C-alpha cells in the first residue's frame, strides 16, 4: 500500500517530463531543449558549483526578507486585528496593496538602493508583506466570539483573552500567511534578480539566455521552481502538523 501512494506522482512526473522531452526533440522551438538535456545541464551546473554559488546569493535576501515579514508583518497584522485605531488607519491601504501589482515598485527600489542586497531584500518584503499582514489581521479578527465570551465569563483578563484564545485561534491563518508570503517572496526575488541585480539565480537565467545556452537557462529556472515548490510544500506539511484542521476550531 505504501508504494501505491507513489504510483500516481510517478506517472504524473513521467507524463509531464515525457511531454517536455517530446516537445524538445520535435523541437517546438530552437530555444526549447528537451528534458534530458536540461537535466544534464542541471547536473553539470550543480557539479561545477555555479548553481550552488548562485543560490547562496539568491537565498540570503529571500530568507532575510521573509524573516523580516515574519516578525514585523505578523506583528503589525496582529496589532491591526487587536486595535481598532491601527485597523482604521491601515486596513484600506493593505486591502489595496494586497490586490495591487506591487512588482511595479521594483524599478524604483533599484533606483534608490542600487543593485545590492538591500534592494533584493526590499523586493521580497514589498511583495510578501501585504499577504502576511492581511492574513495575520484576518486570523485575529476571525476569532470565535463565543470563546472570547467564555473567557470573559471565567474572569479572563484582556491579556489572557489575547494569549489564550485569540492568538491560538489565529495561529493557523497566520502561519498560512507566512507560506503565501514565501511564495510571493520567491516571485519577488526572481524579478529583482532578473531586472535589477545581475547576481544569483536570476543572473544565471539571463546570462545563459543571452548566450543561447538554453539547456542551462532551463535548468536554472527548473531548479528555482522546484526549490520554491519544495519549500512551500514543506511549510504546508509543518502547518498541518502544528495546526491540524480538527483542533483549529475555525
Amino acid at each position, binding site marked *: 500500500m505504501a508504494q501505491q501512494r507513489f504510483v500516481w506522482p510517478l506517472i504524473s512526473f513521467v507524463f509531464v517530463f515525457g511531454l517536455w522531452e517530446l516537445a524538445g526533440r520535435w523541437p517546438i522551438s530552437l530555444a526549447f531543449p528537451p528534458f534530458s538535456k536540461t537535466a544534464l545541464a542541471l547536473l553539470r551546473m550543480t557539479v561545477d558549483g555555479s548553481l550552488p554559488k548562485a543560490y547562496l546569493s539568491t537565498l540570503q535576501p529571500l530568507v532575510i526578507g521573509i524573516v523580516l515579514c515574519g516578525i514585523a508583518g505578523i506583528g503589525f497584522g496582529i496589532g491591526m486585528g487587536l486595535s481598532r485605531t491601527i485597523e482604521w488607519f491601515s486596513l484600506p491601504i493593505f486591502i489595496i496593496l494586497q490586490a495591487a501589482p506591487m512588482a511595479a515598485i521594483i524599478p524604483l527600489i533599484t533606483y534608490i538602493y542600487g543593485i545590492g542586497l538591500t534592494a533584493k531584500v526590499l523586493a521580497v518584503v514589498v511583495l510578501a508583506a501585504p499577504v502576511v499582514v492581511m492574513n495575520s489581521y484576518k486570523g485575529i479578527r476571525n476569532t470565535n466570539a463565543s470563546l472570547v465570551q467564555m473567557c470573559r465569563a471565567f474572569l479572563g483578563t484582556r491579556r489572557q483573552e489575547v494569549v489564550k484564545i485569540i492568538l491560538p485561534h489565529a495561529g493557523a491563518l497566520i502561519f498560512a500567511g507566512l507560506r503565501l508570503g514565501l511564495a510571493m517572496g520567491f516571485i519577488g526575488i526572481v524579478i529583482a534578480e532578473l531586472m535589477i541585480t545581475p547576481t544569483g539565480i536570476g543572473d544565471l537565467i539571463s546570462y545563459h*539566455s543571452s548566450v543561447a545556452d538554453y539547456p542551462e537557462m532551463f535548468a536554472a529556472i527548473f531548479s528555482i521552481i522546484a526549490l520554491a515548490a519544495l519549500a512551500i510544500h514543506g511549510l504546508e506539511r509543518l502547518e498541518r502538523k502544528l495546526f491540524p484542521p480538527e483542533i483549529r476550531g475555525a
Partner: protein
Amino acid sequence: MVLFGKRVPIVFSLVIWFVVWELIGRAKLSTIVPPFSDVVAAGMTILPTEKFSAAAAISLRSFALGMALALGIGIPLGVAMARVAGVGKLLGMWVNIFVSAPISALVPILMAVIGVGEATVVVTVFLFAVFVIILDTQVGVRQADRSLVEMARCFGAAPYQIYAKILLLSALPEILAGVRLGVIRGVKGVVIGQLLIALLGVGELFELYSKNFLMEEFWALVIVVFMFAFLLSEAVAFVERRIEYYAGAR
C-alpha cells in the same frame, strides 16, 4: 475610529495618508516622494496623452486575452480534474506546484521561445491566473452536493444537464473565488511580464519614468494601476457576494 462622537468611515484614513504624503513631499524629506498634489497634477497630464492610452490599451488587451484563455482552459480543466479521476491524479500535483510557484521565473523562457512581444505577456497573464482557477474549480465541483446530483439523476437528468444545472451552478461560489484570485494574479502578471520585457505597455512606462526620475508620473501611474487592480477585484467580489447570498443555504 470615533472622532467628536461620530464614527468616521474607514476609507477616510486614505485621505489622512494622502495628507501625510503631501506633507512629506512638501518637506522634501525624500527625493522619491514628491507632494501628492504634484502627483495628481502629473496624473492629470499623462492620462489624456496618446502614449498613456496606447500603453493602457495594449496592457488591457494582453490582460483580457490572457484572462480569457485562463478562464476558457482553467474552468473546463478544473471540472475534468474533479470528475475524471485519472486526469485529477495526473495533473493535480502540477497544479498544486504551479499555483504557488514563482511564475515570474518562466518569463525568460517565454521571451526565448515566443519572442519579446505581446504574446509573451498574454501567456504570462494566462500562467499567473490559470492555476488558481483550475484549483478552485476542482474544489468546487468536487464538493458539489452529491445528493443534488443523485436527485437530478432520479428525475432523469441527462449528463449534460447534470453538468450545466447542478455541478457548475453549485460550484459557482468556489469558481468565482478562483476567478477573483485569478484576476488579481492576472493583473500582477501583466505588470511583471511587461516590466521584464521592458518594451511594452505600462511596464515600459514604469521603466521610463523611474529611469528618467519622473517621480510624479511614476507615482501617478502606480496609483492608476493599483486602483484598477483594486476595483477589478472588488467587482468580482461583488458578484461573488451576490452568488454567496443564494448559495448560503447549501
